[in-house]
């Protein structure tokens, strides 16, 4: 961990070398996350978002309480997979193969690996809830035109329950996800994120071809759907 003086030195060095120092407070990031998730909730509706809220709470508790159990079973399943790959029960000497596999190191050992496992399980449960919501609640929400947006916030409006509550629940989900991720990813009181924007620009430049191809593919698909009447 860097001390405060070292952090200030790093920032000063970065500014002196022509880099840009952008300060983001946790509150700004939190507000951005909440707004983005609120918008998602607005478009998905309250029912779907509620399922995600339940899933986030469950996933948070599950990875907290069941951490040891999860660790044991992930490592166990890993060994079982290795055993099967080495021939399993069909091997010439299954017990010798099992002894050999058991002697191998576990898949997840270090705190870093355990953190990745926790995040992966949490993300899998939450993503599953997002997808399940789409499958279970198939009924589409009433479309809202831009001019009718203020009506969403009036309790007597037909959009109020689905859209407004969706917005609130989406924002809550964003907050919960943020609340779960930040202490695990950035445990220190202050985090300095050095973003090498030069290579980021390179990365974006290199992948612009894929973006172009995807846009063309989407346009073709959109036109095909429109011409066959499948977009209705």
């Amino acid at each position, binding site marked *: 961990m860097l001390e405060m003086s070292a952090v200030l030195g790093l920032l000063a060095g970065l500014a002196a070398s022509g880099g840009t120092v952008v300060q983001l407070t946790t509150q700004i990031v939190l507000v951005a996350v909440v707004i983005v998730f609120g918008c998602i909730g607005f478009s998905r509706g309250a029912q779907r978002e509620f399922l995600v809220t339940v899933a986030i709470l469950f996933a948070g508790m599950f990875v907290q309480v069941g951490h040891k159990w999860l660790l044991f079973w992930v490592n166990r399943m890993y060994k079982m997979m290795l055993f099967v790959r080495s021939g399993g029960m069909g091997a010439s000497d299954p017990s010798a193969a099992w002894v050999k596999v058991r002697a191998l190191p576990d898949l997840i050992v270090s705190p870093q690996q355990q953190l990745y496992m926790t995040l992966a399980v949490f993300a899998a449960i939450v993503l599953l809830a997002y997808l399940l919501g789409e499958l279970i609640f198939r009924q589409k929400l009433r479309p809202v035109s831009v001019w009718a947006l203020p009506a969403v916030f009036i309790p007597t409006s037909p959009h109020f329950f689905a859209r407004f509550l969706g917005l609130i629940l989406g924002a809550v989900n964003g907050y919960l996800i943020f609340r779960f991720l930040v202490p695990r990813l950035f445990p220190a009181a202050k985090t300095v994120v050095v973003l090498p924007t030069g290579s980021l620009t390179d990365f974006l430049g290199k992948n612009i071809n*894929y973006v172009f191809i995807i846009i*063309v593919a989407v346009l*073709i698909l959109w*036109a095909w759907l*429109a*011409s*066959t*009447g499948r977009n209705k």
Partner: protein
Amino acid sequence: MGPIEVLWAALLIVFIIVGIARTFPKELGVTLMLLVAMLVLVMLEPRIMGILAKGVPPVLKPASGANAEAVAFHLYALLLIFITLISYLGVTLTYEGTVPKGLQGLLMNAGAGLLNGYLFIGTLWFYMDKFHYPMQQWGLIKLPLSPFAQSLIRFLPQNIIPQPQDKILIIFIILLLILRVIK
């Protein structure tokens, strides 16, 4: 002949007009055939270049100016033009559906024509560039290219499609075939 980018733009406009006249379902069939043509060219490239590396066959010498690059370009161009002609003039591979009326339909038709023009003319230009503009000996292309034309080269289809191009083209062809057979 004027700068290559002007010629390119003029031909694109022709393709857009053709697209508007033929409509999107027919143009999408041409798109599929153009992708097949591009795939054929990509797959044949090692073989054609392998043969030409051994020397230009005597029968091709008078027509090509005895230059291996010129022969290669003319072979590629003929193959591309042949497949494109078949897709336009032969039994057209038409997709199902009707184009919506109004501006949306017009944009769809024009867009499909533009895409086909980009694929056809872009592929021709790519191979012209690759084989160092053998058409300049006929006075059809004026070299050196303008800075604008040089900047356009990196947007040609073969420079846009990432490697492995054959696999990506196959994926696109399969997707277009799926759209063709879905009822």
